[in-house]
């Protein structure tokens, strides 16, 4: 029973103090007239520097990708050349062994 009384007391409807609405409206008005943002003189330069850095990074990455592609293609051709050359020699040797084997 006591608990119910406590809850009823705590949650009962109460009227706001006089002048509450006026105080809320006044605070909203103050918030709307916010002070203007000050332009920092270094901000523009920082933006330019950031853009230049980004451009350099993207450019570097692009150049690296082109270089890697060229190196990769060259490595691929070398692998194919080397394995084909090795295969050619192995086949020749196997052929000679077969020839000797069949003539015996």
């Amino acid at each position, binding site marked *: 029973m006591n608990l119910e009384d406590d809850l009823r007391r705590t949650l009962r409807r109460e009227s706001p103090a006089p002048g509450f609405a006026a105080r809320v409206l006044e605070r909203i008005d103050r918030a709307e007239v916010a002070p203007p943002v000050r332009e920092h003189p270094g901000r523009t330069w920082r933006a330019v520097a950031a853009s230049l850095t980004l451009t350099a990074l993207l450019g570097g990455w692009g150049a690296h990708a082109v270089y890697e592609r060229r*190196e990769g293609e060259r*490595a691929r051709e070398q*692998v194919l050349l080397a394995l*084909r*050359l090795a295969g050619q020699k*192995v086949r*020749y*040797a196997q052929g000679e062994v077969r020839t000797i084997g069949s003539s015996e």
Partner: protein
Amino acid sequence: MRKLIIGLTLTLLIAIPAAAQRINLDFPGLEERAEEVVDVTLDSSMLRLAAKFLGKDNDEREVREMLNGLTGIYVRSYSFSKDGDYDRALITRIKSQLGTTWKPLVTVRSKTKENVDIMADMRGDKIQGLVIISAEPREFTVVNIVGTIDIDRLSRLEGEFGIPRISKGGQND
């Protein structure tokens, strides 16, 4: 300190046999005398890079699979304008670098055609390295493949990939 010494010793024990598979293919003065030179030096990082650029057709897929077990491919091929323009002692010099795990697989001796020596670094049942020495009157070629390799698979690769075959003397057909 003790851990460091044990670590270093283990690293050396692992590194020495692995490094032993690669042979020295520097032949001073030979390049100057040769008419044509093929020099291929591909370590494991270059092989990984090459694998990325191999195509998706059957031939190149097979090459990519073969590269998985390899850590290096080294080729030196020299073509000369005159017969016997290189010292045949080079063959002995190359063979002297090979350790006890290296076994001769095939040796071809011919008076009219090329002489070929194929030696494999046998570790158990697997071939962990291959050296092919081909000596002709006007051409000398050494191929050193480091890593696990299937020799039958290698022999099937000749003349594939849409690249013209290499004829004797280094000319493409």
